């Protein structure tokens, strides 16, 4: 088997805070193949954004500290110099953020902000960069691109700003696009539009995508594989169909709880992650047993003492649960 585009091994991102070490990401491994779309889901605060930012080394160090390895096209990103890393950011790997309203620079116009990556990574002149920026705006479906390109973020709606962010991210034809909840902050109708755009572009551009989301409807529609995170750890990973059909981990089952079956209507707000009773445990304490034990209906003494390892429960389907058998746990 050839090497995947991205291979993350034992990624650990910890924050040294005044009241202890926050183990935001605690030993995650996964891979992303060329052109593949992998979703990362999990409740708020489980370390999704930190995982995403660690991949581009955008975590402030200190207080953060990243360990493990992140092999991108065979090179370990954690071993690169800052200069080598800059050549990758926005060029081979780019990122779209959760907050479209605040992620664009308010005092620079759209041409300048899209053009920046082109000038940095492809050495285009200001003039060429502007032409390319107009082209990118057309690609992401912004009407009157020649006029819009001269505008500033405050003149654009939230949906348009996220389109501009996508244009920035795709300008240099990255091999990997990390999208951190690209639709969460937008209106429902705009969410659907942005999602359509991303699906459309995925086919045209051919970049691999790591899609971070709360929205299982989005996962079902866009992703091929899903990684479920809980308290800084990966608790389950499977092809999207298998995960929706036979979730192995009680946490995933909880998340899917009230979600309609795959194939029925999966867009809109009713497909958001279901509420699971209880709270995510503090990431500042080392947990000996299973991280989910405190909220799990099936938890036993074994779960509270011994952390379950990730085990292959079916071909290509791993879960970290002592009681997840070769078939789904009866719910």
């Amino acid at each position, binding site marked *: 088997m050839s090497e995947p585009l991205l291979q993350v091994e034992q990624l650990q991102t910890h924050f040294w805070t005044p009241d202890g070490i926050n183990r935001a990401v605690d030993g995650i491994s996964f891979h992303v193949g060329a052109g593949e779309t992998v979703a990362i889901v999990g409740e708020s605060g489980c370390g999704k954004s930190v995982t995403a930012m660690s991949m*581009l080394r*955008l975590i402030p160090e200190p207080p953060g500290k990243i360990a493990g390895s992140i092999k991108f096209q065979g090179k370990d990103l954690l071993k690169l110099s800052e200069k080598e890393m800059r050549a990758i950011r926005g060029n081979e790997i780019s990122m779209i953020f959760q907050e479209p309203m605040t992620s664009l620079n308010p005092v620079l116009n759209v041409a300048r902000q899209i053009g920046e*990556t082109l000038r940095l*990574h492809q050495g285009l002149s200001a003039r060429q960069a502007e032409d390319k920026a107009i082209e990118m705006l057309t690609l992401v479906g912004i009407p009157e691109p020649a006029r819009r390109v001269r505008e500033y973020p405050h003149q654009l709606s939230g949906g348009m700003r996220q389109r501009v962010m996508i244009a920035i991210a795709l300008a240099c034809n990255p091999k990997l696009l990390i999208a951190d909840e690209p639709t969460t902050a937008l209106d429902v109708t705009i969410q659907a539009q942005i999602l359509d755009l991303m699906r459309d572009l995925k086919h045209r551009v051919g970049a691999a995508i790591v899609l971070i989301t709360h929205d299982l409807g989005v996962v079902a529609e866009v992703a091929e594989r899903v990684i479920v995170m809980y308290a800084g750890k990966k608790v389950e990973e499977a092809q999207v169909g298998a995960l929706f059909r036979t979730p192995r981990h009680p946490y995933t089952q909880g998340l899917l709880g009230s979600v309609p079956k795959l194939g029925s209507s999966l867009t809109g707000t009713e497909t958001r992650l279901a509420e699971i009773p209880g709270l995510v445990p503090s990431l500042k304490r080392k947990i000996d047993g299973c991280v989910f034990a405190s909220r799990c209906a099936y938890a036993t003494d074994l779960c509270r003492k011994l952390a379950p390892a990730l085990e292959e429960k079916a071909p290509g389907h791993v879960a970290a649960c002592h009681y997840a058998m070769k078939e789904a746990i009866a719910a």
Partner: protein
Amino acid sequence: MFAYVVRRVLATIPVMGLVALFVFSLLYLAPGDPAAVIAGDQATPQDVERIRASLGLDRPYLVRFGEWFFRILQGDLGLSIFTNLPVTTMIAQRIEPTLSLMILTLILAISIAVPMGVIAAWKQGTLIDRAVMGFAVLGFSVPVFVVGYVLAYIFALELDWLPVQGYTPFARGFVPWLQNLILPAIALGGVYIALIARITRATMLEVLQQDYIRTARAKGANQSSILFLHALKNAAVPIVTVIGIGIALLIGGAVVTESVFAIPGLGRLTVDAILRRDYPVIQGVVLLFSFVYVLVNLAIDLAYTLFDPRIRY
């Protein structure tokens, strides 16, 4: 935009009118009978009367103000009591050194203070940051004349690198001009640098927390572009505002600096005029300084649009 400029320029007229009224009243706010004060201890009552008449003090206050104001509008600031020369001529003779000193200080201060503040914010909490902040406290607390004398002692008297005092007109060459002005500019700039560096650091600290800075990093921008393009442009409005307000500090400081370094500028003229109670000269100089201050701040208000597209007039 154009309408706004016109409106702002018109709005400065009442301000300048009030300033003029205040400046005119200086003479009468001063304790005692101005004519007697001007005439001095040895004067006879006749002398005092003569001065009173020459000042027009025997006529109603508002009438005199009206006449005075009307003359100012025509560019006539009156005659010096001491030299009998027109005040405008005296100011014209003295304006170059002061203007030179202020402009050099301004350029020096901005080009030192802004990078200082930016770097302190970038390296927040490190030794560099603390050194900058320490310098800022020093700049605030040590008076201009102390800095001036210390600098003159070290660089002019001990090391003999620079002239101790005096002024060389710009027309006689940039280097001699600079040699004479560099120490005064540093002395005068101390407080100003401290002020600008502090506000730059504080504003930059806030801006560097913003999401768009993270976006810039994610695009592969290098550190200097993040600091000086992405962040500084967002921090510009408060910094420029302080630069404008700080011009008042420069004007006040110039008077002292010119005395320390014996620079024949407006500051010296002001001090001499005050010592001689040469009211027309005092009024002329104060009026000029106020006018410059109002204009600078107007220019700065208009400059905001250059930095922040969200500000529209």
